């Protein structure tokens, strides 16, 4: 322990994970807008350009389709590009390359071609930003077969899940909870991580299950704390992966608690919560004491900063859903 355990901010954990990948595999590349000298607008790639040079840490022209499209070509040549999209709202110019090429080329080639491309996207709100800088588009990727979609909630997962994403031979959309970038946590750089696409119980409970990923995990823990004071025992699941979703873990929890509330920042309509609710209701029809409830964004564009508190799930809104569930 000791030596290999560091206390790192989540952004720094990603930085160290990228550094390790660049060190251990000469085929790993980091590319994106301002990832070089600047070290990215969140400093996630800080120092990498200096240490690995512009051949490995590549400032690209300002064109997201071009970034992902050339990353695909580099992957075809044997490289493992880790692409940074500067903000959630700017991934859409690359959406065609992601959906029609990156996601489908392995199947199209009958497995002959692999595209180990990781697309890192800082996502979500809560940082008081202007338009396009606070969105949570994960559902738009999870619906697309051929992609894997994950989102860590803490520094250790950020470090290890990124290692695993880079090692994966499949394209992985790696959603980074930007408002947790500065949250510190312990990272054991010699740990043996569990499988990438599994959920984790981060707090045990018996009355109701809260399922979340990325930035909402911390909130759910706070909700569980608050609920505990009122004598309610909530289990908190960190889903970690959105595609595939670890339904077994959710099912196991719901079979115990009989109640489920799913929390995410993305709009509820056609969001992750819908898929989880539909499938868990099918799997746990006779266990559920209440319908699966969802807490998330409204069917509206992400609002201006001074309204985001109204838009984002918060302690009260999640507790309200918990109350409604328990009232069944």
């Amino acid at each position: 322990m000791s030596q290999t355990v560091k206390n790192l901010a989540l952004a720094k954990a990603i930085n160290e994970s990228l550094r390790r990948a660049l060190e251990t595999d000469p085929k790993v590349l980091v590319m994106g807008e301002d990832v070089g000298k600047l070290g990215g607008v969140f400093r996630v790639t800080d120092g990498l350009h200096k240490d690995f040079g512009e051949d490995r840490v590549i400032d690209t022209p300002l064109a997201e389709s071009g970034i992902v499209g050339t990353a695909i070509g580099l992957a075809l040549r044997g490289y493992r590009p880790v692409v940074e999209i500067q903000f959630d709202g700017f991934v859409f110019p690359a959406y065609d390359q992601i959906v029609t090429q990156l996601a489908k080329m392995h199947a199209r080639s009958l497995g002959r071609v692999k595209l180990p491309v990781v697309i890192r996207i800082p996502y979500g709100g809560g940082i008081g930003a202007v338009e396009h800088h606070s969105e949570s588009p994960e559902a738009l990727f999870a619906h697309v077969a051929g992609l894997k979609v994950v989102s860590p909630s803490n520094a250790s997962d950020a470090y290890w899940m990124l290692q695993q994403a880079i090692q994966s031979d499949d394209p992985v959309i790696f959603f980074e909870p930007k408002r947790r970038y500065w949250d510190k946590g312990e990272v054991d750089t010699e740990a043996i991580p569990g499988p990438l696409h599994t959920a984790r119980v981060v707090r045990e409970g018996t009355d109701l299950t809260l399922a979340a990923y990325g930035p909402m995990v911390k909130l759910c823990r706070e909700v569980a704390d608050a609920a505990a004071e009122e004598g309610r025992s909530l289990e908190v699941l960190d889903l970690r992966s959105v595609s595939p979703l670890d339904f077994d873990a959710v099912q196991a929890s719901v079979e115990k608690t009989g109640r489920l509330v799913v929390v995410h920042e993305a709009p509820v309509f056609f969001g992750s919560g819908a898929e989880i609710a539909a499938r868990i209701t099918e799997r746990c029809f006779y266990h559920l004491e209440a319908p699966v409830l969802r807490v998330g964004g409204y069917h509206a564009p992400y609002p201006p900063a001074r309204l985001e508190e109204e838009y984002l799930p918060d302690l009260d809104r999640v507790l309200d859903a918990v109350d409604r569930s328990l009232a069944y």
Partner: protein
Amino acid sequence: MTVESTAARKPRRSAGGKASTTGTKRTTRTTAKKGSETQLVQLLTPEGKRVKNAADAEYASYVDGITADELRALYRDMVLTRRFDAEATSLQRQGELGLWASLLGQEAAQIGSGRATREDDYVFPTYREHGVAWCRGVDPTNLLGMFRGVNNGGWDPNGNNFHLYTIVIGSQALHATGYAMGVAKDGADSAVIAYFGDGASSQGDVSEAFNFAAVYNAPVVFFCQNNQWAISESNEKQTRVPLYQRAQGFGFPGVRVDGNDVLASLAVTRWALDRARRGEGPALIEAFTYRMGAHTTSDDPSRYRHDDERAAWEAKDPILRLRRHLEADGHADEAFFGELEAESEALGRRVREVVRAMPDPDRFAVFENVYADGHALVDEERAQFAAYQASFADSEGV
């Protein structure tokens, strides 16, 4: 069978070699120089002298009869714009704004081009065109709402034919082109101008806009403010050749103008808008200028550029240059500068006051204007939200 190349094969020299100039008549050459080696259209030197260059006579003709009044007016525009911009920057520091994207250094490009537009022209800005907004008559305080976080666009685009700021790089070039296609369909003789940056030139949307504009001969002027930087990336990261040359490959003229020269910016933009109005189609203007400040208040340029670069550009300051010209030619006296100083201060004060008094939006605003014709789900969510809010009122009311 093998039919292989008979020519010698040398190993690749480097991945960063120069563009070849090899070619025949049937081959387009790439002989142009990069960056500042290319000449600019300039009508006013950094020292404030009028340049009379025969090659630029056509552009110069568009400002030939410019009066002292008009010159002073341009100066006033630049000074007030800079003052407003500085105020916004300090309001951000004071926490009144969440972010600010300063136009410091780009006043001439913006005022020159902005003043070239006619009232019935239509302008599509990016997020830094505070000077253009000023020329269009948009109240500067309206620009601040989105940076304060109270809205995502705080003015009526049709009020001054000045579209909302567009943050997604390059998108508005297509909107401008479509709008111009509509202008042509209407048989109107107005023109459209789209602003974007050097970084934006790399976006597919901008190239598509160039092509649509060329194919439909749309009356649109593409005004690229090359301020040398796209956040931390310099021109070399975006393009191999000067940006104004991009236009030629799509079939319309491109011209590089000294973007720190308000007169040249005015002249060249008039020229381009005029030919658009005459039905001669699009043109690209590359205004060569410099972002004197940080990309935004969130940025730290010391991480990627040297101070001496900034210093070199300070000598070319657009406001100083016009002031020298005004003074040298006796077009403005101390009284003028003094009054302007007072006007600037008054503007700064007003901006400060308006911003500080700017109310937060109603919490129900989240649900407003998502659709023009309504949407059942939005109604449902609004109702739920209201009930939820009311539940606190109840308990608080007890």
